[in-house]
């Protein structure tokens, strides 16, 4: 019951900020020396922050790096909801760690605020610079300077339950290739009438989930979600309207598992893993987890007339403005994008590699589903949306995007123009 908590956090952030303002002159000797492609491995201790959803991959990466290098990285994992506040307080006080990851959709805002050190030159030195995931690099570029490399990619694809498909008389080797097929297949699963089994599921109160799963349906239809500057919403286009009406029809047909309307994202992946959901857009990072309990089929997210797309999400990583060990931190980043880290750690944990030249590796050869995911990721229709006010417009609880989605699926669908204008107003601030 306290304002005190909020005020205290603001206060502490502020106190630290003013303290930093007084002592800001003594760190001008940052790094120093010429930057090389490999950086420096001299036994320094580096700090790295990330958020909880990426803990598995981050731990694997840090362990592998610490085993093979003199530098030692100390990993701090923060709950998802507290991460922005933590980074904000540290940024004000000059207390950011050497390296920190950021949800790729927040990166444009954070680079604009100057939280990251400039990596333009060192990235140029990497022999495979042009093979690194372009979506993440673009999101991490501000005023022609590059600040961020991909840390972990998280892609959205369609997962479907092959066993349920067989029972419903659908071809278990063919997932949906258009939005209408997605709807029909979900309805077919629902028609099975099995107890606790539903056609599909989505996060009805989770802005981030629907950005992640619905944007690709628009892209695959050949349309855009925002203008190139990220200041105007185009979520009132024909493809977007088709997406809304599809989910509304599924909702009215009772083909969405119960609880979707209140789903804030905490458990939106659980139903499919328990075999209770027929087909839904899903995070590709969870393939290995879901495959333990369900016979999973994977296809790209389709558009109105076919096509396939994915949301190139996940986290980017950069060196903080406060780091005094830029050379050593760069050593970690250079290793992170090397084949050793990408294939032997990231691909081995079942995640998607962030270099196009490593897409075809020993792990993807073993599992055609991984190859499907990698192929969709490389498609030109797969994107990372870039906007400075993305968090506020889409991800924040009660965002204008959330209002739009809930009106389209559950409420008054006629107010699309008004809801979209509210979205644009927030983006354009």
């Amino acid at each position: 019951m306290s304002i005190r908590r909020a005020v205290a956090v603001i206060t502490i952030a502020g106190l630290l900020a003013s303290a930093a303002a007084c002592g800001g002159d003594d760190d001008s000797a940052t790094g120093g020396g010429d930057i090389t492609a490999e950086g420096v491995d001299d036994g320094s201790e580096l700090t790295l922050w990330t958020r909880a959803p990426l803990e598995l991959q981050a731990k694997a990466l840090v362990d592998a790096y610490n085993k093979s290098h003199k530098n030692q990285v100390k990993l701090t994992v923060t709950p998802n909801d507290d991460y922005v506040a933590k980074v904000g307080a540290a940024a004000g006080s000059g207390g950011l760690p050497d390296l920190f990851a950021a949800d790729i959709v927040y990166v444009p805002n954070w680079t604009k605020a100057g939280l990251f050190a400039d990596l333009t030159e060192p990235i140029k030195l990497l022999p495979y610079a042009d093979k690194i995931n372009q979506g993440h690099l673009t999101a991490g570029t501000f005023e022609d300077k590059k600040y961020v490399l991909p840390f972990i990619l998280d892609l959205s694809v369609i997962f479907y339950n092959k066993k349920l498909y067989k029972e419903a008389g659908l071809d278990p080797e063919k997932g949906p290739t258009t939005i209408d097929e997605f709807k029909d297949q979900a309805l077919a699963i629902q028609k099975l009438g099995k107890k606790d089994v539903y056609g599909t599921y989505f996060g009805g109160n989770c802005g981030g989930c629907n950005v992640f799963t619905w944007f690709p349906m628009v892209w695959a239809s050949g349309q855009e979600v925002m203008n190139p500057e990220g200041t105007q919403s185009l979520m009132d286009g024909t493809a977007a309207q088709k997406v809304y009406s599809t989910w509304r029809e599924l909702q009215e047909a009772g083909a969405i598992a119960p609880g979707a309307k209140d789903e804030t994202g905490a458990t939106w992946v659980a139903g499919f893993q328990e075999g209770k959901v027929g087909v839904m857009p899903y995070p590709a990072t969870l393939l290995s987890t879901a495959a333990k309990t369900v016979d999973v089929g994977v296809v790209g997210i389709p558009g109105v007339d076919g096509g396939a797309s994915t949301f190139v999400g996940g986290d980017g990583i950069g060196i903080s403005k406060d780091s005094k060990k830029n050379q050593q931190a760069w050593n970690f980043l250079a290793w992170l994008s090397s084949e050793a880290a990408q294939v032997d750690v990231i691909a081995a944990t079942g995640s998607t590699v962030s270099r196009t030249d490593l897409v075809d590796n020993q792990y993807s050869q073993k599992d055609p589903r991984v190859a499907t995911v990698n192929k969709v990721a490389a498609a030109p229709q797969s994107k990372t949306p870039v906007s400075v006010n993305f968090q506020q417009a889409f991800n924040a609880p009660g965002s204008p995007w959330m209002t739009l989605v809930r009106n389209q699926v559950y409420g008054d669908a006629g107010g699309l123009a008004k809801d979209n204008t509210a979205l644009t107003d927030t983006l354009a601030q």
Partner: protein
Amino acid sequence: MTKAKAYAGWAYATPTALFVLVFFVLPILLVGRMSVSDWGLFAGNRGWNAPENFTAAVDNRLFWPAVWFTLKYTVVTTVILLGLALGLALLVQESSRWTGFLRTSFLVPSALGLASASLLFYALYSPQASPFPGQISFLGTPWSALWSTVALIVWRFAGFYMLLLLVGLNSIPGDVYEAARLDGAGRWQTFRHVTLPLLRPSLALCTILCVTGSLLAFDQFYILTKGGPDNSTVTIVQLVYNVAFQGQNNLGRAAALSIVVLAALLIVNMLQFRGLRGKER
């Protein structure tokens, strides 16, 4: 008074004064400074920005809904909580063999932190973990979200306010009741004309605590509803938090909102003190 005594007096007061200065005066001054500055969460102080901070804070699309909801929540909570606490206090006032047990069981929830209590109720309410059968949506509609939260708060705080009122009840001298009985007053008359007036100081204290606490509600909504569904349970302090950390990342505007809340709170408390003191005479 000798000089030495005066110095000793200062020395005694210094620790408290320092404490107040560091943890109360300085933060308020800082929030005041932030509220007139263009102060981004990541960017720090970027110069003067008043009165824009205040107009932007009040123009926020959720400001008036948040004010309205906070007031509604405050009235509902205060009425239910104090009514129930008074009932409980009357129930356990007399000594009987169950009194000790009842008092303890009413007071136990107060030993739990509000955040922990909220998490406990979050689990009770969640469709995945709820022990209640069927698909009851505890947090799905604005109405149910409000009442589910009120249920949590009543459970958590009823014992605490019962204790405060119990102290008040026990300080009413027995001979007053005896006199009332001799005059032939019934139970209800005794309660209405003896207990209530003499309990006024305790009730006043409880009202002020409860109103102030409810106006500043944050933890329970942050954990249970996150302001949802459809922004129907955003309290004013949550709005401060959202502006600071959930999207706008604007500490200046958040501080401006905090100052507005502080001013409103001062006025409310002043009115309450004045009203309650006036009646006492």
